[in-house]
């Protein structure tokens, strides 16, 4: 049987060294993330935020005289996942730009590494670090459940697992911004600029929905429609929108919706990785001259 070929070589021969390089880079990336204090700071922030939300819910229940709370860990868990995911995105945004700026990227490419192996390695490494964070969150919420007497529902726990599925596109989005920006400072600025833009669009849309519409000729209508269209577009571009959709579907137990969102997230991840590898090849791996 004839073996499939690409670039004049068998596909197996093309994939094998790349996969090996990707795994070595992933292990190095994960090790570097676990050694750096920033990840732990993000986890502490996530847990403090979650603790504060649980405390607020307890206070609220007490004030309202409620004896039963439905899924009390739902919102705190979402908050913790969001904080950890934002850290994950920032960490991905920083990673390639920093390596290029320090020159370590060029040294890596002296060896059996190419752009595909590199971005896949980065993705796997960051995801492995995220899985470790999820483990810590899980243990922390179990302890919180024991301490507070609140029940940790299965859907809340599954939401945590579902976030692993969307973590890939959060990282891929960060990697894409990182290769696009080139320099570390511009990569971070680009990320926060885009994040601010996305949040502003969502806020503007929410405000537009609150403005009363006086008749079919109201000037607010076209503004609202335009914002709705932009918001819909953002929901396809922003990786956090996929995370939000997946977590909302998990909270409702809509597993079909979860599966659809995770599939879309996988396609997003793949497309962003291919784009990142392509841009990296075009821009090169050398540090930019001042």
């Amino acid at each position: 049987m004839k073996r499939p070929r690409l670039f004049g070589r068998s596909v197996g021969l093309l994939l094998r060294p790349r996969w090996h390089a990707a795994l070595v880079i992933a292990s190095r990336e994960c090790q570097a993330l676990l050694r750096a204090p920033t990840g732990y700071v993000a986890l502490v922030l996530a847990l403090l935020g979650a603790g504060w939300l649980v405390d607020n819910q307890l206070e609220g229940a007490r004030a309202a005289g409620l004896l039963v709370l439905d899924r009390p860990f739902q919102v705190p868990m979402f908050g913790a996942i969001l904080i950890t995911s934002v850290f994950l995105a920032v960490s991905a945004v920083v990673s390639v730009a920093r390596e290029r700026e320090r020159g370590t990227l060029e040294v890596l490419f002296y060896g059996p590494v190419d752009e595909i192996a590199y971005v896949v390695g980065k993705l796997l490494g960051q995801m492995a670090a995220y899985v470790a964070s999820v483990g810590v969150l899980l243990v922390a919420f179990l302890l919180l459940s024991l301490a507070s007497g609140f029940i940790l529902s299965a859907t809340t726990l599954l939401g945590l697992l579902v976030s692993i599925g969307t973590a890939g596109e959060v990282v891929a989005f960060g990697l894409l911004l990182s290769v696009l920006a080139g320099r570390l400072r511009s990569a971070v600025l680009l990320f926060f600029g885009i994040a601010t833009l996305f949040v502003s669009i969502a806020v503007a849309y929410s405000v537009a929905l609150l403005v009363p519409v006086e008749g079919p000729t109201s000037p607010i209508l076209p503004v609202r429609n335009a914002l709705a269209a932009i918001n819909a577009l953002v929901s396809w571009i922003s990786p956090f929108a996929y995370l939000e959709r997946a977590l909302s579907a998990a909270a409702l137990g809509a597993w079909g919706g979860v599966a659809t969102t995770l599939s879309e997230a996988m396609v997003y991840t793949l497309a962003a990785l291919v784009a990142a590898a392509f841009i990296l090849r075009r821009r090169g791996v050398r540090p930019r001259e001042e």
Partner: protein
Amino acid sequence: MIETRGLTKRYGKRVAVDGVSLSVRSGEIYGFLGPNGAGKTTTILMLLGILRPDSGDARIGGERVSANNLDMRRLVGAVSETQHLYGDLSIVEYLAFFARLYRVDHATTRIETVLDEVGLSSRAGDRAVHLSRGLQQKLGLARALLHDPPVLILDEPVSGLDPHGIREVREIIVQERARGRCIFLSSHVLSEIERTADRVAILHRGRLLVEDATARVREHLPGDVEVEVQVDGPAASWLDTVLRVPGVRSATAADETLVVAMARDPGARRALSVGLNSAGAVIVGMRERQTSLEDAFVTLTDESIHTLVGGAAG
């Protein structure tokens, strides 16, 4: 071991490397010289598969260099002018990472061996970024040697090192040549190239001006050669005789030595000898003044500029 044919790279309208064809054999040190901006680093990046040539090709160990041929990169160990290290890794961890990347068998033993070879065994546990520049350079060499590649590509490996550091790195390079490695050595330190390289190539404005054995590069120099002639008695009395010899451009005399500028032609030297002998001079010794590689480099690259300017003017 390294073979390039018509290697060309353009950045917009500027031609950085212009049809470079060279070959480097196993067991030799190939000095790659050129002024700043000559295209040395661009050539090296094309040899490493990091830059794609616009035309021409490069082969290492018979395998065509390309960004997709990752196995080919295992044939090469490369060291750049500055070592870019990971802040959180010790020397051993740094080498262990690259050993995994290159799939080095018996990595622990191999790391010990290369650390011993470059004299870093006693610092194995130190953070790599805390090493002095010279030791970082040695660590770069250790990394490049880790997977035992047949080809070493070294870009300015002694740049910024003190004399001790230069000597130590030189000893490592010479030792690796003795092991049969093909060493492609780019450097600004011409005295280093003169001491170590078997052959040199001079690149200027992207073009290869000369490729020859180090000792023979001066033969490519255009213009006159200076010959010192020692005679018995005051040299000044033979000045007129010397100036009448065909091919002699100028001459000076001091004590018993004549310094004669003449055409780079063995016949001219014979004519000088015959002329002096016929006039009754007793020649005690005659030798050509040796041009250093630095002089040859400066002359050849200056000549190239003049040719280019002349060509443009014409």
